[in-house]
């Protein structure tokens, strides 16, 4: 503060020397005493509140020397990387005893793997992988081929992963991931890291061969200098190092293969995935050997979780980089254990394998289903970023199919129209952007995804209206639609049906994700299932229209118009996709009615609050759908009207669950080739069956029996609950 007081005086002197003239209506004056008085008036911790001092500003303020807030605080350890290195925190070699050196390197490899998994799981790169002093000063390791090659491939892998995630830009809420300022990343030619690695691997292979030959014949067959000095441990060390190096090699290759355009590297990538998984298993097995060696060589009794040997790794300091982890205040990071890191990478590899196995189906409907199925596995950011890069490259599906062609196919239009001039219409172009945007959103984490889906609902509604107007203007009234020979008219009609279907698909996903994210409480289930019911009815209707249209298109190819109409009537069957939706509709209807009946007759699952009513909660939950008029004329009043008369006796006479069960059973043969859908049908049957039984129990005992405790659980399906009835 004293300095502050003196400063104005310096300012005045400066002003005088620089001869800044007093402006019009202003003169230089000494304000030292005023500032001194102001300082006296403002003790520590007080502040003058300015109009622009927001919560953000208040929370960004740090208290200097508060260990919770001040990342620059002297933590009693090293002040810089150089200081740490000068003090011997990261020696090269790690030990002059080559056996200890080998063990230490393995510890570093293991701890780095744990750090890498911790980074992937959402912590900053600076405080995880780059807590490794060797990585921070890569050049220092060049004399140590083994350590150097490993550090370089880790470095290259970090670069590759950051590049995938940054390019995909699916990490809005996970932006810590790519923050790498102040870290020695990028810029370097990473390709050469593999030749280094191969050379080291080759040496290790020879050392392993030599040690095996020696133990078999008790004589040296090759003039190979052993890895370390203890003959009995040579084979174990060579194996432990080889699997670690090979894992890195295959993992890096895998990342490179996956980046090839249009999924062309996927077959090769799958081979690398398989190799990575085998090497991970070998790494896991090596733990027993390493623990044994560690206990023999240097048993100091303390075990850490981040290495296979249980030894503390050398050359890591999470604090030295703490200032690079901005903008977050310093936090102690709990590094994943070595075992959890192995599990993480196994999971990542399985997720990537699913992406690489995808057939690059050209039909959008199947792409959406694949993405939704993929998300059920709860993939982490790295896997999701890879999926997104596969789906959208250069503004095309898989970098291969132009979006207009994708839309035409999705809308059941014949292949020939994909070059039609309609694709130049500005709203059709915009629709293409919406499709791209939708695919990207479906690759984000589900919490963010739901929020974005809610917001784009209105876009889809508006584009529908705009397209309809544009088509009318261009093509005339749709009432003349009997003239389907007019290709443009037909395209307009089909595209509009599809846009509506797509919008309802988004709406249904938005609603269903609420269950996955645990956003609904049991008191809200009734209105949620009611809304799902009305949205699914619309979705089924639009899907049905679209499939009928495609049926029509297919028929027309070979037959005359008169015949086709007759065939249509004769061959007509509700398509399996629509029947599957019908199953969900029955479940949603059944659950709505059951919950409404329990509310009406038992006063259960009502959630009165002191400040608002169910009406307000309805508005809040369905705001996005209501704004987009999806469906039209649906309001809280409609919900109240359709549930006011619900009773358990009416549900007994018309059991929606039985309908769901019947349709699901019948559908099994239609989906026999699709194990995911067969499993889904089984879950639907289970939900339906258990709810039917619960309904029977409640009806038999009587709705008014107060000893009956009813709750809803998601035992058989993530979105459709089953009633659990217990007697207290």
């Amino acid at each position, binding site marked *: 503060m004293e300095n502050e007081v003196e400063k104005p005086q310096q300012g005045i002197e400066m002003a005088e020397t620089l001869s800044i003239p007093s402006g019009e209506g202003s003169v230089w004056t000494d304000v030292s005493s005023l500032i001194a008085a102001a300082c006296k008036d403002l003790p520590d*911790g*007080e*502040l003058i*509140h300015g*109009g622009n*001092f*927001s*919560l*953000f*500003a*208040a*929370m*960004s*303020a*740090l*208290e200097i020397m*508060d260990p*919770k*807030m001040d990342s620059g605080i002297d933590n009693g350890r090293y002040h810089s990387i150089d200081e740490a290195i000068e003090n011997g925190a990261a020696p090269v070699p790690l030990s002059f005893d080559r056996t200890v050196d080998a063990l230490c390197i393995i510890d570093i490899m293991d701890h780095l793997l744990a750090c890498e998994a911790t980074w992937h*799981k*959402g*912590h900053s790169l600076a405080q995880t992988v780059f807590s490794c002093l060797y990585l921070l000063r890569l050049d220092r390791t060049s004399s140590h081929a083994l350590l150097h090659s490993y550090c370089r491939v880790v470095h290259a892998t970090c670069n590759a992963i950051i590049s995938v995630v940054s390019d995909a830009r699916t990490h809005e*809420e*996970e*932006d*810590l991931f790519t923050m790498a300022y102040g870290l020695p990343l990028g810029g370097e030619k990473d390709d050469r890291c593999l030749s280094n690695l191969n050379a080291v691997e080759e040496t290790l292979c020879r050392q392993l061969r030599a040690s095996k030959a020696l133990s078999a014949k008790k004589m040296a067959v090759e003039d190979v200098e052993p890895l370390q000095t203890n003959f009995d441990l040579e084979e174990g060390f060579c194996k432990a190092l080889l699997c670690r190096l090979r894992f890195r090699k295959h993992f890096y290759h895998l990342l490179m293969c996956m980046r090839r355009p249009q999924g062309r590297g996927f077959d090769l990538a799958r081979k690398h995935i398989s190799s990575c998984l085998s090497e991970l298993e070998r790494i896991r097995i090596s733990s027993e050997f390493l623990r044994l060696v560690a206990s023999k060589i240097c048993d100091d009794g303390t075990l850490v979780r981040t290495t296979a040997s249980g030894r503390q790794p050398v050359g890591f300091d999470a604090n030295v980089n703490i200032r690079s982890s901005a*903008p*977050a*205040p310093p*936090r102690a990071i709990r590094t994943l254990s070595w075992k959890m890191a192995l599990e993480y990478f196994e999971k990542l590899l399985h997720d990537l394998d699913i992406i690489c196995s995808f057939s690059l189906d050209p039909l959008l409907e199947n792409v959406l289903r694949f993405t939704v199925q993929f998300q059920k596995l709860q993939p982490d950011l790295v896997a999701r970023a890879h999926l997104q890069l596969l789906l959208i490259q250069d503004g095309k599906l898989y970098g291969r199919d132009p979006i207009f062609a994708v839309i035409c196919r999705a809308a059941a239009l014949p292949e020939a129209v994909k070059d039609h001039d309609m694709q130049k219409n500005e709203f059709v172009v915009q629709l293409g952007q919406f499709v791209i945007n939708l695919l990207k959103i479906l690759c984000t*984490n589900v*919490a*963010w995804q*739901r*929020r974005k889906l809610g917001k784009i609902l209105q876009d889809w509604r508006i584009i529908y209206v705009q397209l309809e107007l544009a088509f009318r203007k261009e093509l005339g009234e749709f009432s003349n639609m009997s003239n389907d020979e007019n290709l443009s008219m037909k395209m307009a009609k089909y595209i509009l049906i599809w846009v509506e279907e797509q919008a309802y698909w988004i709406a249904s996903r938005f609603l269903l994700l609420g269950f996955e*994210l*645990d*956003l*609904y*409480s049991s*008191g*809200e289930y009734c209105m949620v299932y009611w809304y799902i019911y009305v949205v699914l009815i619309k979705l089924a209707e639009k899907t049905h229209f679209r499939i009928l249209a495609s049926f029509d298109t297919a028929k027309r190819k070979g037959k005359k118009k008169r015949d086709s109409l007759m065939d249509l009537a004769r061959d007509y069957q509700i398509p399996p996709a629509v029947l599957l939706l019908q199953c969900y509709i029955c479940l949603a209807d059944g659950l709505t009615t059951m919950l409404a009946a329990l509310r009406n007759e038992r006063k259960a699952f009502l*959630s009165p*609050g*002191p*400040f*608002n*009513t169910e*009406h*307000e*909660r309805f*508005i*809040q*939950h369905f705001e996005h759908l209501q704004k987009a008029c999806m469906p039209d004329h649906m309001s809280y009043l409609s919900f109240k009207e359709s549930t006011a008369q619900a009773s358990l006796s009416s549900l007994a006479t018309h059991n929606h669950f039985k309908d769901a069960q019947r349709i699901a059973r019948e559908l099994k043969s239609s989906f026999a080739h699709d194990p995911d859908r067969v499993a889904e049908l089984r879950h639907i049957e289970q939900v339906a069956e258990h709810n039917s039984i619960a309904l029977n129990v409640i009806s038999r005992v009587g709705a008014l029996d107060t000893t009956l405790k009813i709750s809803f659980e998601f035992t058989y399906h993530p979105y459709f609950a089953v009633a659990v009835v217990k007697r207290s």
Partner: protein
Amino acid sequence: MEDTKNEVEKVAFEASEIEYVSYGGEHHLPLIMRLVDEELSEPYSIFTYRYFVYLWPQLCFLAFHGDRCVGTVVCKMGDHRNTFRGYIAMLVVIKPYRGRGIASELVTRSIEVMMESGCEEVTLEAEVTNKGALALYGRLGFIRAKRLFRYYLNGVDAFRLKLLFPHRPPMLANWEGNEVQCSDDSSKQYQGLPFECC
């Protein structure tokens, strides 16, 4: 959050023994700070406390058992995307006093003032694992509007909870509107405001 004092034993008291007072000035500030610092893991600078209690003293309440301050609530209100919105920033009741409705009473008092001041809705964030807080706010009519992925620096997701008041004609008392443009989202990545209650 760790219980720093191991005071898990409940204190015996009658509900009527708890006295609720509105923020009364500078002498209350250290009490609030100590309570929040002890019970919540996130660090707040003194400026954060002052920001709230100086701008919205009427939304801050303390609960006393005798001379002992056992709970507090700290809030704000202002414009947020064309909505006049209340925001519950901190709610703390010390462990021996939890489960007796003190947090409910504190937060209810704040919400009532927000309602009278013309707020259209009230929001807050709570950790998805904080079952007590979620139940409390659920009883008061809050819905879980959004899930915020890894909102807290400890990696835990948060729910954004919202309470919408029944529609009333708009009030004119938008007296702090300019001060509170900061969106709640913008504090993310720095310090999520965690909640501990019941």
